[in-house]
C-alpha cells in the first residue's frame, strides 16, 4: 500500500514538473488533451477493465458534459463552477436511469445498445440547433476562473486539467483497491460466484456505469471551458472508439495503463502530421494487433516482452 502511494506521488511530481521542460510550447496544448483523454480512458476502464462491461457510447457522456456546461454558461450565463457539477449531476442521473435496462444486456448486445445510445446523443447535438448551435457548434464558452485568475493559457490549463486528472486517478486507484473494486473484478471474473458471496452485481454495475459517465461528463465540461468552443464532431462514434482503443492499448484494469494509452494515442497523431486523415487506420490496426498479440495491454505486455527477451538471452548465454 505504501508502494502504491509512493508510485502515485512520483507520477504526480513528474506531471507537475513536466511543463518546465517544454517551456509552454505547442506541446503543452497537446498535453492538456492527454489529461482530458486520460480521464476519459480511466472512466471507461472502470467500467470495461474492472467490471467487464463494455460501452461504445462514452463520447456521448463526454459530449453531454461539454454541451450542458457550454449551454448553461453561454445562453444562461451561469458560472462555470456551478455549471460543471450540474452537468455531472444530470449526466450521472441519466446514466443511472438508463443503466438498469442497459446493463441487463451482456457482451455484444451491450456493445450495440451503448453504441446506439451514443449515436442518439450525437444526433440530438446536431439537431437541437436552437440550443446547441447544431453542426456549426457552440462558441464563446467562458474559461474557468479562480480568485481572479482566468485559465486562458496553455500552461494554466495544463495545471488545471492535470490537477483534476490526478485527482480522478487517485480516486480511481483508491476505488480499485477497495471492497468495491474487488467486487467489480469479481463480477468480471464470475458474476454468479460474486452474487453467491453477496455482491449485488446488478446495482454495482449500474453504480459504476453512472460513475463512469460522471467522470466523462466532468472531462467534457473541462474540455468545453478550456477550448471555449464545442461542436458535435468531437463527440461522435469515432471518438468512443478512440477512447476504447486507449483503454485496450494501455491495459484493461490498469489506471496507469489508461494514462499510457491516452498519452500514446493523443501524441501519435502529432508525430504523424500530414497523415492526419489516416490515423483512424492506425487505430483500427492497433486495436486488432493489441487484442491478438497483447491482450493485457502495454502495461502488462511490455514487462512480459522484456522478461521473454531477457530470459531467452539468458538461456542463449548458458548454451
Amino acid at each position, binding site marked *: 500500500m505504501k508502494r502504491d502511494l509512493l508510485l502515485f506521488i512520483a507520477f504526480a511530481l513528474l506531471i507537475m514538473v513536466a511543463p518546465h521542460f517544454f517551456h509552454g510550447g505547442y506541446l503543452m496544448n497537446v498535453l492538456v488533451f492527454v489529461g482530458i483523454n486520460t480521464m476519459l480512458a480511466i472512466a471507461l476502464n472502470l467500467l470495461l477493465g474492472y467490471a467487464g462491461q463494455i460501452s461504445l457510447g462514452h463520447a456521448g457522456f463526454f459530449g453531454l458534459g461539454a454541451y450542458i456546461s457550454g449551454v448553461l454558461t453561454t445562453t444562461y450565463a451561469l458560472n462555470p463552477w456551478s455549471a460543471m457539477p450540474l452537468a455531472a449531476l444530470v449526466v450521472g442521473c441519466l446514466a443511472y436511469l438508463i443503466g438498469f435496462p442497459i446493463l441487463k444486456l451482456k457482451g455484444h448486445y451491450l456493445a450495440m445498445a451503448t453504441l446506439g445510445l451514443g449515436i442518439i446523443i450525437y444526433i440530438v447535438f446536431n439537431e437541437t440547433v436552437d440550443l446547441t448551435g447544431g453542426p456549426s457548434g457552440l462558441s464563446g464558452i467562458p474559461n474557468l476562473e479562480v480568485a481572479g485568475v482566468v485559465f486562458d493559457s496553455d500552461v494554466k490549463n495544463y495545471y488545471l486539467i492535470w490537477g483534476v486528472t490526478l485527482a480522478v486517478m487517485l*480516486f*480511481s486507484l*483508491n*476505488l480499485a483497491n*477497495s*471492497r*468495491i*473494486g*474487488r*467486487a467489480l*473484478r*469479481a463480477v*468480471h*471474473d*464470475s458474476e*454468479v*460466484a*460474486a*452474487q*453467491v*458471496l*453477496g*455482491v*449485488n*452485481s446488478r446495482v454495482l454495475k449500474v*453504480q*459504476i456505469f453512472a*460513475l463512469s459517465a460522471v467522470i466523462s461528463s466532468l472531462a467534457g465540461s473541462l474540455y468545453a471551458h478550456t477550448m471555449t468552443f464545442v461542436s458535435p464532431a468531437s463527440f461522435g462514434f469515432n471518438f468512443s472508439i478512440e477512447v476504447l482503443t486507449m483503454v485496450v492499448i494501455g491495459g484493461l*484494469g490498469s489506471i496507469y495503463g489508461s494514462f499510457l494509452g491516452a498519452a500514446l494515442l493523443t501524441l501519435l497523431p502529432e508525430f504523424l502530421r500530414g497523415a492526419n486523415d489516416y490515423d483512424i487506420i492506425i487505430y483500427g490496426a492497433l486495436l486488432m494487433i493489441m487484442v491478438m498479440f497483447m491482450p493485457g495491454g502495454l502495461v502488462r505486455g511490455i514487462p512480459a516482452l522484456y522478461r521473454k527477451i531477457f530470459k531467452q538471452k539468458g538461456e542463449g548465454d548458458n548454451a
Partner: protein
Amino acid sequence: MLEVSGITQIFGGVTALDSVSFSIAKGDITGVIGPNGAGKTTLFNIITGIYHQTAGTVTLEGKDVTGLPPERLARLAMVRTFQNIELFGGMTVLENVMVGMHTKSSSGLLACALKMPWTVSEERRIRDGALKWLEFTGIADLADHTAGSLPFGKGRLLEIARALAVGPRIVLMDEPAAGLNSQETLALAGLIKRIRDLDITVVLVEHDMELVMDICDRIVVLNLGKKLAEGTPRQIQESPEVIAAYLGDDD
C-alpha cells in the same frame, strides 16, 4: 434450518424435479446423493436462487426465501460452492476471500474512492478476517498467488474459504470432492467436520459414497427427479429402493 417443499422444475416439457420435499436440521451434515441426472445440481441451483423453480417453496430458518436472488441469500447467511470451482481467476487468493467479506463490510463506492478514514480500518478488518479463513482451510501460504494459477485441489479449498468468509450459518457444497485425489478427499472430510464444529450446517451433493457415508449425519437420495429415500447413512445403505436404483445404474 432449511426446508424445501414441493420443489418442481420443468425444463421445456422435461420434468427435472418432481415435488421434492425434505428438511435439514441445524448443525447436521446432510448429503444429497443420487445417480447422474437425478436432479441434484438443479435442486442446489433452485435452493441458492440461481434457477427459479416451476413450483414449490424454500424456507430458511423459518423464513420463506423462495425466489430470492443469491446475493440476498448470502445476507441471510446461506452460501454455496460450485461443482466446477468458480474462482475469480484474475485476483489473488487473499483477494478472493476478501470478496467473501463483502456482506460483512459496508463502505460505499464514494467512501472507498475518497478513502475515508473508516474505510481504511474496515479494509484492515477485511484483510484480517480473510487471512483467518485462509489459515482455517490451510492455504494461508498461497495468499499472494493468483487464484487462476492454483492446482484444482487448492482451488477447491479457496472456494470453501471464500464461502466461509461470508459468515454463513448454512453452506451448500456441490460435489466438493470431485476432481480431488484420495488424500485431498480425506483432508476435505476433516475440513467439513471442522466447519460443522463451527455450528455451520453443511449440505453436500456428492458422488463419493465413502465420503458421504463417513461424514454425513443424514442423507437424502434423489432418483429421476424424485426423492427416493431419506435417513441416516445406515438406513440408506440398507434401503432396498436405494440399492435397486444404484444397481440399475452403472455408476
